[in-house]
């Protein structure tokens, strides 16, 4: 920490160009970020991990029911968007369903009424979500901690009720049925092919998130997370940084939500329900806060687990997912990815000695 702050002294608070380059020092190890711990691993380890990840992504619909694999991709984006705020900006959003769901509805409406190819509809949905994130974020980032969570939750609930009441557009309880999967005449009705159609979009989204946290901007976010007062003292417009992160996060959540809507070919009120926000947070905590890829892992596990449980004949699904959540929080406080990264790092450190 000290290292980095010393290096940023020359900045003198220029709001116009808040130091995209001045403060960056990729060698500076941030205090808590598991992701950057992996980034510190030797090059071949990183490439091997990347290759394994890509192979798993390519193989997934062959090993899983493709509809479930599609859900995992969408939820991976959603989880990463939440982690961007929770893990890298220190803002716990409990209302991210607002962006996921708004984009789902917008995507559905655009796809139904404009008949655009699905990536265009999803993009429209994600942009709509980012637009919604602007006013909500503007008001919410003025608060931190539990108050921030409550404000985001309140706005998400407002969006939920608007969708519930605005029946002429959203079809209310019945849900928006019959969202098409148009793509220049290609037949994507089979989820297996649809998975591969959306995979590039999801990878692009994940890459964007990775770029964001590794950019100078992302480093400032981590700085704000760890010590907002110091960041402010150094001249960073903290609110504006947080707001930008919030809007970017809303966009990514929207990307996931739009794909989710096209994936299921319908949108129900569930996408805006607060339990959806809660599930996103659970996914991130399970995977590991502030690890980015942990969110992807968490999404895969939670979606797969819920799918498996609903066929298992076990009558208390909530008990199982809740129990696992409690166990992870008690025993693996860094989340699954975070714990593994931590162990690897400790072994690496031991070997060096």
């Amino acid at each position, binding site marked *: 920490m000290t290292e980095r702050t010393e290096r940023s002294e020359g900045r003198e608070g220029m709001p116009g160009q808040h130091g995209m380059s001045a403060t960056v020092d990729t060698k500076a190890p941030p205090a808590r970020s598991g992701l950057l711990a992996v980034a510190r691993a030797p090059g071949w380890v990183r490439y091997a991990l990347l290759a394994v990840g890509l192979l798993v992504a*390519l*193989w997934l*619909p*062959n090993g899983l*029911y*493709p*509809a*479930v694999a599609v*859900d995992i991709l969408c939820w991976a984006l959603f989880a990463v968007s939440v982690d961007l705020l929770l893990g890298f900006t220190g803002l716990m959003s409990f209302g991210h369903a607002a962006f996921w769901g708004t984009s789902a509805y917008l995507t559905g409406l655009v796809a139904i009424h404009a008949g655009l190819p699905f990536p265009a509809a999803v993009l429209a949905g994600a942009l709509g979500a980012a637009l919604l994130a602007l006013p909500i974020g503007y008001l919410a980032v003025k608060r931190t901690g539990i108050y921030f969570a409550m404000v985001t939750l309140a706005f998400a609930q407002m969006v939920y009720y608007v969708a*519930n009441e605005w*029946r002429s557009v959203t079809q*209310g*309880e*019945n*849900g928006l*049925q*019959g969202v098409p999967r148009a793509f220049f005449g290609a037949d994507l*009705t*089979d*989820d*297996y*092919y649809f998975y*591969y159609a959306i995979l590039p979009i999801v990878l692009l989204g994940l890459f964007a998130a990775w770029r964001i946290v590794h950019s100078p901007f992302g480093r400032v976010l981590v700085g704000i997370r760890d010590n907002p007062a110091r960041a402010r003292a150094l001249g960073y417009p903290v609110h504006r940084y947080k707001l930008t992160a919030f809007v970017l996060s809303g966009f990514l959540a929207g990307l996931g939500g739009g794909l*989710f809507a096209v994936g*299921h*070919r*319908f949108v*129900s*009120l*569930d*996408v805006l329900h607060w339990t959806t926000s809660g599930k996103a947070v659970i996914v991130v905590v399970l995977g590991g806060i502030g690890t980015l890829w942990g969110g992807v892992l968490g999404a895969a596990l939670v979606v797969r687990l*819920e*799918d498996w*449980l*609903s*066929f298992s*004949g076990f*009558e*208390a*699904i*909530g008990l199982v997912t809740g129990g696992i959540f409690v166990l992870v929080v008690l025993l693996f406080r860094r989340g699954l990815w975070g714990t593994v990264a931590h162990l690897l790092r400790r072994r690496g450190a031991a070997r060096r000695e």
Partner: protein
Amino acid sequence: MAAASAAALLVAGCGGGGPQSGGDSKLTGDKIVLGVLNDQSGAYSELSGRNSVKAVEMAIADFKAEHGDDAVTKDITVETADHQNKPDVANSKAQEMYDRKGVDAILDVPTSSAALKVADVAKEKKKLYFNIGAATTDLTGKSCNRYTFHYAYDTYMLAHGTGTVTTEQVGKNWYILYPNYAFGQDMEKSFSTAIAAAGGTVVGKDGAPFPNTSGDYSSFLLKAPTLNPKPQVLGTMQAGAELVNVVKQYNEFKLREKGVGLAVGLMFITDIHSLTPDALAGTTYTDAWYWNFDQQNREWADRFQKETGTRPSFAHAANYSAAMQYLEAVQAAGTDDADAVVKQLEGKEVNDLFLRNGKIRAEDHRVVHDAYLAQVKPQAEVKEPWDYVKVLKTIPAAEAFRAPSADCKL
């Protein structure tokens, strides 16, 4: 390579829809698989849930016993999944059931949004779906399709029966309290129409917030008896836990003593069981089936109780009946090809455990049957556990359901 071979596998997995040419059996995989997709862990798990799986298993046993060696197959199994009342889960599970689990027909699926989605999946996969758990008339209206049948009940049936008979027999002036969302508003409209047609008046109506997290209905309930003219009937459209709150407060404010009777839009016997009959005594509602109505029902309910330890709700009986009618149709068609089975079912007139004077309408796939106007007994008159209601009137099948809607194009 891997992707290509997997795609081939997938196509092989999906391609089993039509009847097999050649061979002795006309059944895919030489077997019939029924799928029960419903809520097994949430609000609707009591009234249908896993006990509906038991009911379907009973239907399979009865079918085998009835047809013996002539049965089209002896290999009939049940697949089941918990959709947790989430439409997106229902969507994935329905697809997986049809594609991977070899399910020929899906049964139940409560919650309108989930049911409409599953109907969509059935249409796309050209496999059958018998809805039992959802009440929306859209399933036989603008969202109807060739492969979807709507069993048991719908909002029209609930409102029409209770609205008409209560207006004729209890009182002409109504105050309607409904949860302010799609189901509640549909119910309010249907009730108002039925009440007006029976010569009654709705003197007041209010939409309560939904979900009503505070559980407070006092402002509505205190207002009801002060209206002019004073309502003789309070019609509540709340369901499940919200109904419980309305009824508790109705009793607290002693509205019955003030001359305001209670009519309920949707109630299951499991609701009466959890509220106790005294809390609801005198309430009228429309029931699709009642276990203690006659000897046939009772005998079946006894068997059901042996299997499950509880008395059946109408949803359980409807699941039994739908499974039975499907199997009979496959038997008659000699194949599980969905189109051939639909042809067998359409227009069929049926009398079975659940369907009395039943008919599977060809126009909109609404399964019509006699419905019952039921009244909850006070505890003193309850002779045995679960014997909570008396049937005031049988509503003939022709009157109980709406005429086929012009919106429905199969």
